[in-house]
């Protein structure tokens, strides 16, 4: 359903093509099936955020194209929604107000969007925090608000940029499990950026390993571990260790 074809993106100093440039993405191609969970994994600076921003339609590629259901993508659209690395919460809105933001833009009437927002806040376990301001809640909770906000738009494709990068290990595990549960209940396609090998193996159907300078795809690794993964101890499965070793090797080499 999502196709990325030979995508390249260059950043120039002061946005001026006559100045020195930095190749953030070079010839990146891959495709994602409907309802698939794909992780983008790679070292810092390899262009993960850039790639996901191009897919979101926030910036334009210099070459290549993105297609969703066969239609080329050049701008943000209702079919895709993004969870930001730095949360991207509006500090002057309460938790509820932040979740309502996307629905408000879509012109959904007040009562209805209230109700939808509350439902999604409950889903991410933030019931009772509706009237808090972002700075009054913890980083993990803030990220859950970001996730609720994206989910509330019920996008076909959920783009998540290191959503759990800024939270502690325990919260992280809990959020991972919640995300998998939500994903399994809907038919959303997820593209999930991460730094962590364990996280990528635990969550995804497929890990796309990237490398830097210039940012490109190194290889794709299928993860054929049984689901649901939150039951039992998937991480103790020998296949888990095997995949982990394999990906680590790939990142190194």
């Amino acid at each position, binding site marked *: 359903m999502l196709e990325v074809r030979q995508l390249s993106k260059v950043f120039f100093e002061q946005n001026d093509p006559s100045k020195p440039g930095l190749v953030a993405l070079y010839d990146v191609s891959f495709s994602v099936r409907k309802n698939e969970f794909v992780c983008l994994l790679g070292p810092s600076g390899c262009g993960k955020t850039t790639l996901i921003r191009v897919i979101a339609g926030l910036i334009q590629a*210099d070459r290549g194209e993105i297609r969703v259901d066969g239609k080329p993508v050049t701008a943000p659209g209702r079919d895709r929604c993004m969870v930001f690395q730095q949360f991207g919460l509006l500090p002057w809105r309460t938790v509820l107000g932040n979740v309502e933001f996307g629905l408000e833009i879509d012109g959904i009437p007040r009562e209805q969007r209230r109700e939808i927002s509350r439902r999604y806040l409950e889903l991410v376990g933030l019931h009772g925090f509706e009237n808090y301001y972002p700075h009054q809640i913890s980083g993990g909770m803030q990220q859950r608000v970001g996730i609720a906000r994206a989910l509330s738009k019920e996008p076909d494709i959920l783009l998540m940029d290191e959503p759990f990068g800024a939270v502690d290990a325990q919260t992280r595990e809990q959020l991972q499990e919640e995300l998998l549960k939500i994903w399994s209940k809907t038919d959303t396609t997820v593209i999930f950026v991460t730094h962590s090998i364990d996280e990528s193996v635990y969550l995804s159907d497929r890990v796309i390993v990237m490398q830097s300078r210039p940012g490109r795809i190194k290889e794709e690794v299928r993860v054929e571990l049984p689901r649901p993964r939150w039951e039992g101890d998937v991480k103790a499965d020998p296949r888990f260790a095997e995949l982990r070793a394999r990906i680590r090797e790939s990142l190194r080499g």
Partner: protein
Amino acid sequence: MALNALEQQALTDLDLSRARPFRLADRLGAVRVLSVGLLILAWEIFGRDVNPLFLSYPSAIARATMQLLTAGEFQRQALGSLQVYAIGLSAALLLGIALGLLMGRYRLAEYILDPYVYALDATPRVALIPLLLLWFGLGPMSKIAIVFLSGLFPVLMNTFSGVRTVSASLVEVGRAYGAGERNIFAKIILPASLPFIMAGIRLAVGRALIGIITAEMFAAVTGLGALLIRYSSALATDKFFVPVIFLAVLGVILSHAVELWEKRLAPWKETERAL
């Protein structure tokens, strides 16, 4: 950062060096110059058609400038204004900093003085001009007083809040190293509140300039303010603009000077304040 071979190859392959389409946003300097040039040109052209009693135009103002400068009147009045300004402002800075330090450090001083300070700070100082003229006459004394009062409060208030924000932990560092009250004042409180004091001085410089011009305009006897009144009642709009432009330039120079001074005195602190 040097590019590696792969990056080089990628850049050549993508070949993005094509010229960018023309965008106004790439030519901001030109836009600026054009904007100013057009306004001056329009002023010159249309200004000539307007009754000269109401509006002058650039070349006439230039001519009036030369005329006033050769006559020497302008310089004399400007010098008079500047002397008064310098005396009043120096007094304001000295007393403002001293009182600010005192009030910031000693609570008794704060409680005794702050009713007056807050009340006077909130009262527009220009409202005192008629009273000061009554008290001190039309001579320099009344103007010095208004410059002093205009400059005093910004410095005082900023020094005060500067001393207040010097964190208790810094003072504690001083104590831990055996500093007495004098050393704490001189080596910790004063330098730590310097950026605030300088910001106060920056405000004071502008306020004092407004104070002196208003007073001179009101008394209408000597100084640049008096010139403004004289030329405007004589309907000499070309001459009127000469002190106006001088004052604008003076204002810019003074505030830049304070900024430079600020950077030299407190280079370790980037105080970006919104005015």
